[in-house]
């Protein structure tokens, strides 16, 4: 086994660490404290990061991107998340869907969308899957044609007419281009009746509704998408009609870049939160005192810090192994297990961090409170029972 990073991987890691220290951490708590969900986003930090490659680093080199490998992506996500988990996610969300573009779009579609995405520092991507009545049903679909996605797409000549709505969609309020899952056949199971479309934000009949006001990941924008006779050209159909699930895993298949990356993404991002919590807790325990002694002199504090670091290092090993396996094209349920595990670890580590700090008088430290709210995002994305059962089912098919 060789855990050595290449020079290129190390360079990306260092560049990410510097950007996180210089640009992300200084604004993290202030952005978190903004009460209006729509106003937490900051284009300045996104554009600065984009110029350094953090928006486009997953686009293959032949298309003008940086073509970074999964190990590099995992390292960068963790470094950025160590300064602000939500800002890290705001960058990596673009990698997730640029993976998808390069894997599943036609050459013609790539030519239409990738150059624009690469050139524009303010171009971010999103994907609309979840709907008010279709959450778990999209992740663990059933055969009932009435279940799952309701957003309809009907063909009219060279166009498709989309009607319905999406909810909680990441980057919806600020994105320029979205992948959208829509039902093209409501008489068959969602898995067979759903088609994937490319929908630019300026599509006629398409608009953004409310921006969701989340308790954690406040910087990261999640919004409603509303389609009222939205007109999408047939040329924007990704893959075959009724083939959305085969293309993205969005309706259950688990075979493509989008999902592979998604598992690694959440696990790597959690690692960043854990690193932040560990370092800050240790620093605090060495400097804060109680009864005239440093907190760290106490056995209970040593045990808490031991557990924080132990869990974090175990997660790091898991994350880096999965990233390396992805680069070796070894794909297995382990990526999903790492994601589930990251939920348990990030929650426990953040809770322990708050315990080390404790309330001072009648105030709680904002940083500890933020990390714990960010960590709880994992409970519905990465560690809920549906996401665990889904991974268990992958184990039964042996990949």
């Amino acid at each position, binding site marked *: 086994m060789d855990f050595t990073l290449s020079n290129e991987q190390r360079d990306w890691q260092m560049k990410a660490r510097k950007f996180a220290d210089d640009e992300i951490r200084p604004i993290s708590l202030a952005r978190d404290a903004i*009460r209006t*969900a729509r106003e937490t986003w900051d284009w300045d930090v996104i554009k600065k990061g984009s110029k350094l490659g953090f928006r486009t680093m997953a686009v293959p080199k032949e298309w003008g991107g940086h073509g970074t490998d999964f190990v590099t992506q995992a390292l960068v996500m963790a470094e950025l998340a160590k300064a602000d988990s939500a800002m890290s996610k705001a960058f990596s969300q673009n990698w997730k869907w640029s993976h998808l573009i390069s894997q599943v779009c036609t050459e013609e579609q790539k030519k239409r969308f990738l150059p624009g995405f690469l050139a524009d520092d303010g171009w971010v991507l999103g994907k609309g899957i*979840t709907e008010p009545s279709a*959450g*778990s*049903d999209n992740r*663990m679909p*059933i055969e*009932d044609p009435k*279940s799952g996605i309701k957003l309809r797409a009907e063909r009219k000549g060279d166009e498709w007419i989309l009607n319905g709505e999406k*909810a*909680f969609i990441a980057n919806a309020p600020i994105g320029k281009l979205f992948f959208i899952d829509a039902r093209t056949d409501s008489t068959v199971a969602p898995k067979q009746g759903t088609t994937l479309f490319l929908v630019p934000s300026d599509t006629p009949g398409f608009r953004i509704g409310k921006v*969701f*006001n*989340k*308790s*954690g990941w406040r910087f990261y924008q*999640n919004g409603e998408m509303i389609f009222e006779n939205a007109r999408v050209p047939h040329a924007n159909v990704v893959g075959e009609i009724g083939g959305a699930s085969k293309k993205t895993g969005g309706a259950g298949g688990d075979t493509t870049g989008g999902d592979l990356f998604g598992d690694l993404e959440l696990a790597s991002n959690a690692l960043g939160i854990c690193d932040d919590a560990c370092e800050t807790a240790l620093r605090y325990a060495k400097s804060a005192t*109680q*009864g*005239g*002694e440093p*907190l760290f*002199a*106490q056995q*209970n504090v040593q045990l*808490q810090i031991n557990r924080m670091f132990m869990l974090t290092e175990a997660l790091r090993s898991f994350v880096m192994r999965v990233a390396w396996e992805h680069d070796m094209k070894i794909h297995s349920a382990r990526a999903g297990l790492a994601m589930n595990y990251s939920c348990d670890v990030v*929650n426990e580590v953040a809770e322990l961090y*708050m*315990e080390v700090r*404790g*309330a001072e*008088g*009648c*105030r*709680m430290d904002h940083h500890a409170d933020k990390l*714990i*709210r960010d960590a*709880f*995002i994992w*409970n*519905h994305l990465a560690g*809920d*029972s*549906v996401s665990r*059962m889904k991974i268990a089912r992958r184990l039964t098919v042996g990949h």
Partner: protein
Amino acid sequence: MYSLQLSPEQLEIRDTVRDFVTREIKPAALKAERLDIADRSLLLAQIDAASQLGLRTLALSEDHGGAGADALTACIVTEELAAGDADIAAVLSETSRLSHLLIDLTMNDAQRDAFLPKLLNGDRYHLAFAGHEIGSDLRLGVHYHRAPAAEAVVKTTATKTGGDYIINGVKDCVANAPLAGLFAVLVRIPGRAEPAVLLVPADAPGVSVKAHENAWPHGAYGSVTFKDCRVPAANLLGDDAVALLTGTSEAGRGNPIYQALNLGIGRAAYEAGLDYAHIRVQGGRPLIEHQAIGTKLAETIIKLEVARNAVWQAAWASDHPEAVADRSLSDLPLTTIAQVFVSEAVMKAAKDAAEIFGAMGVMRDMPLQKYIHDARVCLHANDGNSDAKLRIAEAIAGYRRAATSAMALAGE
């Protein structure tokens, strides 16, 4: 005899308060803007209405015009209130607790004549104990199983001048400060070894209150500044007031009122999760019909039921010292035991209930993230569970602290 058979009165007051919470508190507390944890403005109209039901003076003796509720009844009421709004429960239980400690147990007749009518006649007349000062740290921590104990900082002075005391100093993190009509203020009197408690009306000249915006604990908190504040010497409480108010008294084993509040938060989260699990259909059937969700709710109710037993047992022990004396109940610090168990159980309950809601569980205009925050506040209240476990450890180790007051003076 140890019994948890509730009296007809206790059952009636539980039903009354539950109904009040459903009709009057929940509609206001569950409004989207109120669920944002950044908005902790008090629901004053509901607090006033609860006062009219007698909940502000619940623990005050009937002789003095209160409901004379024992610890168990107060816990039952507080759980119900907190299932509607933890801040309301915190404000009312603090005034109720202090009305018993001050009016029933420590005031003399003249003091009672001066302050009891104001308490009884003003729905918005609340009580506050101004004890804590910046720099005070009463954690056990490094003092575990060794002397000396942590000492409270009492820099606020009360200097006798003729027939008055002149008070100067700043108290911080005072529960109920922004609503208080009367403060019981922990002071140092030059020339006296032990601290003392003075009654100070909120409208006395030289008193100013600054509310803490978004304080961590539940209720209403603030700092109170005394600047050449003059009160009559007759406002001095008897010597036992310090121990009663700071909780260092040997009498009683502590009242698990705060654990009842914590339990109410867990119940609200559980009930929300259960309701949603009945209505939300995914995977072709209501969530509750899925094994994973059914099991999660079962685990939650197991924890909450055991938690309630811990609270009620501690309350019973508080009401019946004889049950401890005759070994019906253990002489362990049952309230502290309840604190650890209830706060951990409710934290897990709130997170599990939120997970049932999927993404809605993290939205600031939805109740679940609020319950999680509320549960976490309790988890880190009272110096946190690490410290609570040390207190329990000292008890089971048989470690006896010197009987002298933990309120030794600083600043002299």
